[in-house]
């Protein structure tokens, strides 16, 4: 009995020293011993092999569909005017461009049915489909049993991920977070000085690097010369809470967010001791002016770190960028856009908050193969004259979408939880009515012209002919 405890203790010591010596210390100094590189290479080769096997297996079993990332419907992407014009073109009376016809409803009907089969918004809130299976059970949707060898490899993968990688990653995460709390509290005890700032940056970066190793994260940063500077606002597309770890591995940022309770609250309270972050109470969040003022004050102080904001407001599945809320773009100051694109082959980083809570999400992350992503720093942007906040936000959004290879949507990410506003329906009605009423007006103005041209009828009603 005693012997067993001693062995366990020795084992634990060995384990801890391996973790500290081989992973944590190099991580803190930003040095890579190359283990992750080798791991990823092996993984890539294995997944290639698996894909070939699946491909071969699918050829033998006829007609199994593989997922298409391009959508399942052939859509005619014309505007409302073009398509209704097409519908009417063969109308016997040739009233192209105006007047109502019974078949106009076909256009709306077709659009409606297309949206029932496939719409642009709902699919953004679920995980991206993969073209081939990456040996994770969770992405095994339509793939069925192919061969014994593949199943063995999959079984091996499960063992490696759950029994070897998971404990390792949990250890690293625990070490990383406790180091963050302890380190920032210690640094917070110092008086304000350059030394304090430098130490605070050191603590933050080392902690985030340890956490990144805790996820087997391989991050590639591009265009580092555009890295956000102090007094600026860093803006990025949002896929999961891990985005913060990804970005903070290469620079120090001031976080913005709501005050939470529990573990998050502990973290928040401790890191704000060593350098200023912006935490809001729930009640303060509703007052947009107060929020804007605090952010403005923060960026006005050039010694404070750049603010990190995710303007989408919610997690999207990394295939698209949704509407950026204009609040962060009204403050002024330089915007440093950053595009983050995860490679879904190694692990799906999207946090589907409707389906998973934070803990189960983190467990899923730690039992994936790895987190592999690319981060692009884009050149800084400022609001131009004559551009309002919404246009500026859209400009930044397009730049991020373009760089990251994501679809640029103008839908509001808040639609995840809310209903569509009536105003969107009204816009559709407006567009359609301008097609119908346009012709009516032409007929009316024609008759007006005819009546006015005869000077004998002074009582002809004079209608204003302002444009619609």
């Amino acid at each position, binding site marked *: 009995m005693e012997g067993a405890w001693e062995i366990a203790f020795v084992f634990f010591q060995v384990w801890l020293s391996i973790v500290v010596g081989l992973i944590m210390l190099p991580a803190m100094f930003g040095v890579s011993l190359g283990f992750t*590189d080798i791991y990823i*290479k092996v993984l*890539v080769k294995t*997944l*290639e092999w698996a*894909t*070939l096997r*699946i*491909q071969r297996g699918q050829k033998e*079993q*006829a*007609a199994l*569909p*593989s*997922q*298409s990332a391009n959508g*399942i*419907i052939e859509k*005619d992407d014309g505007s409302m005017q073009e398509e209704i014009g097409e519908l009417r*073109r*063969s*109308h016997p*009376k040739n009233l192209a461009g105006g*007047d*109502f*016809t*019974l*078949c*106009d*409803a*076909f256009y*709306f*009907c*077709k*659009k409606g*049915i*297309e*949206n*029932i*089969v496939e*719409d642009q918004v*709902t*699919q953004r809130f*679920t995980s991206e489909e993969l*073209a*081939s299976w990456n040996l994770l059970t969770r992405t095994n*949707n*339509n793939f*069925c049993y192919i061969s014994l060898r593949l199943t063995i490899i999959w079984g091996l993968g499960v063992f490696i991920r759950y029994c070897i990688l998971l404990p390792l990653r949990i250890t690293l995460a625990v070490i990383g977070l406790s180091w963050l709390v302890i380190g920032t509290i210690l640094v917070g005890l110092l008086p304000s000085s350059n030394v304090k700032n430098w130490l605070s940056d050191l603590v933050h970066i080392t902690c985030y690097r340890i956490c990144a190793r805790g996820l087997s994260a391989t991050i590639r940063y591009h265009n580092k010369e555009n890295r956000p500077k102090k007094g600026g606002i860093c803006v990025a597309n949002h896929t999961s809470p891990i985005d913060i770890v990804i970005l903070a591995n290469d620079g120090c940022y001031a976080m913005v967010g709501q005050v939470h309770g529990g573990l998050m609250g502990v973290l928040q309270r401790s890191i704000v001791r060593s350098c200023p972050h912006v935490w809001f109470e729930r009640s303060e969040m509703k007052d947009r002016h107060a929020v804007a003022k605090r952010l403005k004050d923060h960026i006005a102080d050039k010694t404070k770190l750049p603010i990190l904001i995710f303007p989408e407001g919610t997690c999207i599945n990394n295939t698209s960028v949704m509407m950026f809320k204009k609040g962060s773009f009204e403050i002024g100051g330089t915007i440093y856009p950053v595009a983050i694109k995860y490679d879904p*082959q190694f692990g799906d980083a999207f946090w589907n908050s409707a389906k998973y809570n934070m803990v189960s999400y983190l467990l899923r992350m730690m039992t994936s193969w790895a987190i592999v992503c*690319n981060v692009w720093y884009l050149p800084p942007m400022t609001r131009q004259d004559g551009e309002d906040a919404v246009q500026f936000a859209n400009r930044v959004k397009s730049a991020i979408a373009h760089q990251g290879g994501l679809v640029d949507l103008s839908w509001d990410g808040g639609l995840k939880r809310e209903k*569509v506003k009536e105003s*969107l*329906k*009204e816009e559709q*009605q407006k567009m*359609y*009515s301008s097609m*119908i*009423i346009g012709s009516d007006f032409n007929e009316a103005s024609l008759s007006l012209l005819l009546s006015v041209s005869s000077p004998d009828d002074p009582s002809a009603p004079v209608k204003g002919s302002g444009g619609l």
Partner: protein
Amino acid sequence: MGSTNSTLLKIPNVEVLMQETGFSPAHIIRLHDRFKALDKEGRGHLCPHDFGAIKELAMNPIGDRIIGAFFSPGKETVDFHTFVKILAHFRPVDKDRPKEPNSPEPINSRSNKLKFAFQLYDQDKDGKISRDELLQVLRAMLGMQVTDEQLESIADRTIQEADLDRDDTISFEEFRKACKHKRFTMFRFCIRPGERKLMLTLCHWSSELQDQHEL
């Protein structure tokens, strides 16, 4: 030769469904995935609320009517079979289908497509579009953008043009004639069953690993 795909096996009477609707196995699987995605609570059937959750449909002026077309009168739910049968209306017309006198008309025939559209107008299902029903559709599509008078004049003009037997309603035959010259290519979607090629793109994080396999 039946497909061994497990998804297909889970759907009851799938062979009959494919026969009736003309969808291929790949299409059925795709539609089944979509059905499951819409059925968030996993009940096995959809209710109007599930359709209402589709944002782009909520924005459609006649979205409610389209949703209503899925539910037979009195029924509050739609199962997968009915879902697929209704979507089958929108398959492209099979040009090579031989005209057998005894076989039932395919769901996606021109006539059935027209009937579907007709029912969007004819909500009380009496076989005729009354002036009131026409006004309702017009109001839905135009919203508050037009006055009542403009609406009435449009309705009057439409009935005048289409109503051939002068009974102040539009019957299905008159509807058919009014839409006779329309090209029904507007009324279709076809599902791409997915490319056979498997694109495997791996993260390029070292130039040696930059592989793009097209198999």
